[in-house]
């Protein structure tokens, strides 16, 4: 799989990485978390086509906390569409071994991204430069 080319960062813009589900498939949880947090540390906005599992979200919070530094990185802003599926449906899916976690997820540095509006079909965010 080709690696993303290093951007030329002259501070004039905000890099957005849209990561396909295919690219994340087959990666271990910590590899996914590393991709996300490395991007966010660089001031990028990371958009995941298929999101993370609840367990990966829990680990993302834990690793994010361990990397917060009062002199720099102060955490992440993360947004997904709220799940409005009937829970019975997902429980059935889980019983059938089809845990449906596919949900577009936007992650960015807490000091650069602000959610303006979120509902079941729209996430509107304001992104500022570093």
């Amino acid at each position, binding site marked *: 799989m080709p690696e993303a080319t290093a951007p030329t960062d002259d501070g004039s813009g905000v890099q957005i990485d849209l990561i396909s589900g295919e690219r994340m498939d087959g990666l271990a949880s910590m590899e996914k978390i590393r991709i996300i947090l490395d991007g966010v540390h660089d001031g990028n906005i990371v958009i995941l086509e298929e999101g993370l599992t609840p367990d990966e979200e829990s680990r993302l*919070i834990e690793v994010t906390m361990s990397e*917060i530094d009062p002199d720099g990185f102060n955490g992440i802003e993360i947004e997904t569409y709220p799940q409005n599926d009937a829970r019975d449906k997902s429980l059935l899916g889980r019983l059938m071994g089809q845990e449906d976690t596919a949900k577009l997820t936007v992650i960015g540095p807490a000091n650069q991204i602000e959610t303006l509006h979120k509902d079941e079909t729209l996430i509107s965010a304001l992104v500022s430069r570093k």
Partner: protein
Amino acid sequence: MGLLTGLKASITRATDRLFSEQDPKRIGIYGPPNAGKTTLANRIARDWTGDAVGPESHIPHETRRARRKEDVEIERNGKSVTIDVVDTPGVTTKVDYEEFLDFDMEEDDAVRRSREATEGVAEAMHWLREDVDGVIYVLDSTEDPFTQVNTMLIGIIESRDLPVLIFGNKIDLEESNIQRVSSAFPQHETVPLSALEGENMDEVYDKIAEYFG
């Protein structure tokens, strides 16, 4: 035969110990910062043991270590339920030490509090994955419940198939909107309460006994 009978009896005893309903379940009190988790933990502990769990404060991240109060025996309808109450630090995805400066804190103290807060949140997540048998999720009913942290945490709790009760706290405040809390997580039972004023605690204890007994 005597040997077999003895073996069977000892296996039964071991199984009984493993699955005994008398074993206290560890119930984690989770939620965002400043929802009133420690106030609730203290209310429960004081009502049934006479002791408090930890200090309460209006400054976010007052609780920066998970604290456990063991063997809290709650009596309901002639039965008793024993739980361990685990008060956890408020979960968030960001901590900025500068927000503590607004509470007249010196910069060194704010930085230290922020470092401890991040460790506390990581610890709370670890407890959730490894060490709790059920969850009381506390929300401030005056605040918007539709936040990403709430959505993620409820999702994490559901994925682990842990029993969960949503507590809509601070109903003593005028801005409280318990209907909004109920509609945010309709798949779970929401119990309104004021941990500070002790309002609706009878229903709180009924539900704790029903869900975690």
